[in-house]
């Protein structure tokens, strides 16, 4: 059976070149970067090289990059770090209703500790409005955290415009910072911290064809935050703990390759996604795209199929070798529709039927065509079972033309 991986937003396969780069640091180059001897300095030099590469990917200076364990830790350090450090200036945070669960969880936790959190809507297009951010800003707002691209529908948020707004406030004397979670965006579009005018930016390596377990937080020079991992001098006191050297090296190589190949990768997945969506339109009825189609990451297509439930479709596709994901879950008899799809104003049925197809740099036309072969059958199998579909068909048959 052909196996097709259409879940690159969840994680990406590790690039062979990245594996080659990290292997020596799993074997003979094992030194602790904090050690003064040769072994240590060899590792230190490798970590420094990786830091330059990750910095270069987002237009930052190397000493503005903090290596840590991944996107969730980066979001924790950014949001909690700024809020704990600057609580005396205010206790108000602005975020959106479609952030990654880590940001959502951190903001919920702040809410339980006497912080006020404003969660902005994203409307049907899945994009936050700059005027809403402007209206939500208060004299006691210390942090605005808005993701650069959404993890479920791929919509790109107006972070640069929000950044300009925050700069105006700062010029007027307010103590306020902007964080953006760029974990999904970094592999799909050019990211530049100065263009975005952000103060903090989260990255994760495993979305860029590197292994899991490593990420980075960009911290603009001069921004102070309370470290969340204390007890070590690493990462300029911002994140204690011996660096995961092989993973950091892998991240550096993945960042270098991403920087060099990004445009070609983006063009490749955009073309294949167009082929995929044209094929779905020709073969399947009664579906809706989720999120603004013009303003999204090039490799992501999120579709709700009416009358069927996402997990059933996912398993049906999986049994035919196609890996996708759904944001919804039904658990212990209570429905947990995707908060992201619900934030677009979709009803429960559409939110339950959402499937994310995310393509990658090594996806082929043949794989797209295979998915187009099995997907309509899987949807049809589930619809034949669906009382909702049968009812809709009867109603349609009874409606005069």
């Amino acid at each position, binding site marked *: 059976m052909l196996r097709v991986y259409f879940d690159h937003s969840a994680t990406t396969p590790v690039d062979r070149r990245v594996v080659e780069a990290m292997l020596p640091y799993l074997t003979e180059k094992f030194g602790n970067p904090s050690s003064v001897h040769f072994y240590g300095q060899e590792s230190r030099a490798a970590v420094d090289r990786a830091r330059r590469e990750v910095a270069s990917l987002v237009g930052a200076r190397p000493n503005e990059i903090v290596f840590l364990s991944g996107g969730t830790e980066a979001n924790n350090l950014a949001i909690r770090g700024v809020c704990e450090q600057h609580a005396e200036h205010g206790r108000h945070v602005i975020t959106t209703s479609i952030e990654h669960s880590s940001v959502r969880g951190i903001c919920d936790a702040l809410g339980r500790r006497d912080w006020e959190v404003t969660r902005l809507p994203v409307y049907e297009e899945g994009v936050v409005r700059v005027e809403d951010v402007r209206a939500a800003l208060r004299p006691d707002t210390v942090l605005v955290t808005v993701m650069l691209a959404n993890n479920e529908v791929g919509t790109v948020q107006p972070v640069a415009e929000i950044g300009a707004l925050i700069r105006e406030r700062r010029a007027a004397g307010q103590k306020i910072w902007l964080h953006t979670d760029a974990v999904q965006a970094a592999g799909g579009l050019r990211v530049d911290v100065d263009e975005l005018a952000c103060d903090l930016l989260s990255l994760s390596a495993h979305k860029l064809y590197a292994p899991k377990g490593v990420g980075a937080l960009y911290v603009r020079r001069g921004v102070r935050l309370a470290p969340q991992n204390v007890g070590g001098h690493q990462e300029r006191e911002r994140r204690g703990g011996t660096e995961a050297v092989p993973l950091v090296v892998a991240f550096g190589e993945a960042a270098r390759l991403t920087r060099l190949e990004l445009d070609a990768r983006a063009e490749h997945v955009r073309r294949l996604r167009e082929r995929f969506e044209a094929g779905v339109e020709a073969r399947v009825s009664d579906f809706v795209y989720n999120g603004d189609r013009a303003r999204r990451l090039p490799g992501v297509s999120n579709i709700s199929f009416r*009358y*069927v*439930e996402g*997990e*059933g479709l996912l*398993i*049906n596709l999986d*049994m035919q070798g196609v890996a996708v994901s759904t944001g919804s*879950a*039904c*658990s*212990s*008899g*209570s*429905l947990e529709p995707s908060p992201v799809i619900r934030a677009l104003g979709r009803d*429960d*049925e559409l939110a*339950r039927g959402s499937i994310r197809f995310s393509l990658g740099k090594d996806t082929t036309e043949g794989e797209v065509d295979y998915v187009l072969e099995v997907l309509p059958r899987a949807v049809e*199998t*589930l619809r*034949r*079972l*669906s*009382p*909702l579909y*049968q009812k809709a068909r009867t109603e349609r048959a009874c409606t005069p033309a």
Partner: protein
Amino acid sequence: MAYSDTLKDHLANPRNAGTLADADAEAEQSNPVCGDRLRLSLRLGSGRIEAARFLAYGCPPTLACGSALAGMLEGMTLEEAARVTRERVTEAVGGLPARKRHAASLAIETLRAALESLTRGAF
């Protein structure tokens, strides 16, 4: 969420899917919280359930339990059908994760409602 191969097979190759034009009993039950929905149609003959069909909307266990239930009902007497339990349906789909046990409950509620419609009717 790990599902058994049996459950997945019911999902890919549902047994007894559909409705019966000449059904003697029909019932549709739903879980008001999660929206899962199961419809069961039964036709009787010679004191037994001659045909059983199901339609379902919802998570994979709900679909699989509908398929397994409809399959096992055919050939049963009404008394045997009334004795089918949640555990038996669960077993027929190769077990259910703890968080998905409500799917078998919905299957049994729908069966009971269908049987009740029979006792209220002409049979």
